[in-house]
């Protein structure tokens, strides 16, 4: 088992004829992801790596029976692309795009509330269920099938930690990059709930960072509802307040969003919080052996 994506996931790439879209489509195909179509308005009828391109999502979904999409569309057009994907009633939409305006993201959430669609991102690396499917740009070599679930706010840090784990023989059920924006679609809490219910996941790793209160909300869920062990790592212990650390959501505002408050909340919830990347591997090995 896995969460969000598996062998049955049928993917449309929105923006498939663009530079990034094409490049990532190739890599997902190489991983074995079932890419069944692409959408690029005005390019309908073309093919990319033998995959049919459509003008609209409705047409693409109807022709291919897709249930998932991944969005490689520039920030100015991404809002429209997300709404189109939600309107075509997909189960899952992964939005990789960085720099989407806050008001667009806020309106997307309203639309999501009245839909059947789950959104990952924006500004995220996507999701991979090793050996089954990858919808996103996570590097294949870092992952191996196993029983650890990973949920994270940052890309390269997740790759690094996953690679360390894979080298140490700890495989993953699903790895979800929820993205570094202040209002992501799926939150830590949402993904933890999915891992809690997933038969294929025994232990969960949460990779958080400074800013916002998503880790604190996750801690509340872990304390009250979660039976599976959780290991946590929070980046940014040394980050100064008031400075945006790369991600739009990674900023300590006032007294909120510090690494300490997140670490405290997680520890109070019974999470094994570790201080460094190497400790992540050791802590998980101890729990899972």
């Amino acid at each position, binding site marked *: 088992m896995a969460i969000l994506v598996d062998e049955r996931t049928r993917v449309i790439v929105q923006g498939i004829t663009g530079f990034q879209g094409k490049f990532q489509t190739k890599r997902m195909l190489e991983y074995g992801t079932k890419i069944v179509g692409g959408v690029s308005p005005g390019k309908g009828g073309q093919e990319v790596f033998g995959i049919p391109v459509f003008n609209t999502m409705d047409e693409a979904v109807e022709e291919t029976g897709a249930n998932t999409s991944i969005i490689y569309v520039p920030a100015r057009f991404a809002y429209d692309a997300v709404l189109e994907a939600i309107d075509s009633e997909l189960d899952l939409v992964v939005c990789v795009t960085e720099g989407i305006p806050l008001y667009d993201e806020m309106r997307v959430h309203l639309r999501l509330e009245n839909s059947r669609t789950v959104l990952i991102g924006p500004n995220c690396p996507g999701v991979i269920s090793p050996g089954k499917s990858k919808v996103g740009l996570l590097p294949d070599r870092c992952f191996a099938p196993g029983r650890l679930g990973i949920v994270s706010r940052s890309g390269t840090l997740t790759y690094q930690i996953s690679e360390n784990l894979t080298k140490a023989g700890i495989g993953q059920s699903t790895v979800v990059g929820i993205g570094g924006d202040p*209002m992501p679609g799926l939150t830590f809490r949402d993904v933890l709930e999915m891992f809690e219910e997933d038969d294929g996941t025994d232990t969960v790793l949460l990779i958080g960072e400074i800013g916002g209160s998503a880790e604190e909300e996750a801690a509340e869920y872990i304390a009250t509802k979660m039976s599976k062990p959780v290991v946590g790592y929070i*980046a940014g212990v040394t980050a100064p307040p008031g400075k945006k*650390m*790369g991600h739009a959501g990674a900023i300590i505002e006032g007294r909120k969003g510090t690494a300490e408050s997140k670490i405290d909340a997680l520890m109070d919830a019974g999470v094994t919080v570790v201080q*460094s990347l190497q400790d992540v591997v050791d802590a998980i090995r101890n729990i899972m052996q």
Partner: protein
Amino acid sequence: MRLHEYQAKRIFEEHGISIPKGRVAETSEEAREIAKELGGEVVVKAQVLVGGRGKAGGIKKAENPDEAGKIADGLIGSYIKGHKVEKVLVEEALDIKAEYYVGYVIDKSRKRPALILSRRGGMNVEEIAEKYPDDVIRIHFDPLWGLRDYQVRKVLYEANFDSNEIPELLKIAKNLCTIAFKFEAELTEINPLILTDAGFVAADARLNIDDNSLYRNPELLKLRDATEVDELEREAVLKGLNYVRIGGDIGIVANGAGLAMATMDLIQLMGGRPANFLDTGGGLSDPQKMRMCLEHVVRDENVKVVFVNIFAEITRCEKVAEGIVLAMDTSRRIPHVVKLAGTNEELGKQLLREFAERSGAEIYLVDSIEEGAKKAVEVAGGGV
């Protein structure tokens, strides 16, 4: 992007919110002139993008035009919390009957805009919320329907506001929301909102715009001023670099915000002191970009060693290595600890080995972050 008070006030006024009479001055003579026009008694306010300006001596009252000139003279060219004062706002002194707070924020955890009202103006809103939680009114509303009159009326009646004040407060609240939506503000506030005999006046104005939306309001870009105090941070903003100065002696360049922060944390854990945070961003494939990042980091004279931590996926290691070579040839040459992993890793390492042999540059190739952090701390001469 944060606007100056005088810029925000201009926008507020254009949207039907009363502001004190006054103008901006760049010299003491101008300040004196404006005070004269306003009838003598004025407030002189430094236009700097920092919080807590008043407490830091940036807001002063003058009894007459001469005093206004003197205060302006003292403020212009001075520094408030590290920000140079280039302009002062000279405004009529208001006759204060009461001070309120009205603010608008996007509540990111609820994914909704919220209007915040309080009868306790003058303090910052976090302070009010902490000391007097019962006196803070929050109205979350639907961004599609906007803030409705009844929502504001309801809470104002419940909080026993004077019914004579309610219509005007309602108008101000709605105008503030109109401004927020038009310019896509993350936060906008009037603090304090002052009740005078003539009605409510916005004594201060704040407007922070979401950077990602600026392309939709390009006229705002002309108002842009960097909020960074630190010279290197200021420059980084203009160059489009994700750079924050931390203050230690080990420079950090990583591709990815989380990875850069984790590297910083690890260096501190090992007894070293991170000098900065620099995230190159994703998909680094231009050696010139890498060169620019490294040159920026070594311009901080305190930096004794740079730790380059790259996890390459779309990024290509040989391009990163080319950038390192370029930077070491053109800028202050100090030791570099380099961890390259991923796409074209061997090619990148080979390039750096050859360069080090040829030029004598001090480059330490490492295989893990732990090893790299340890080496960087050792080279910097600190550590446990």
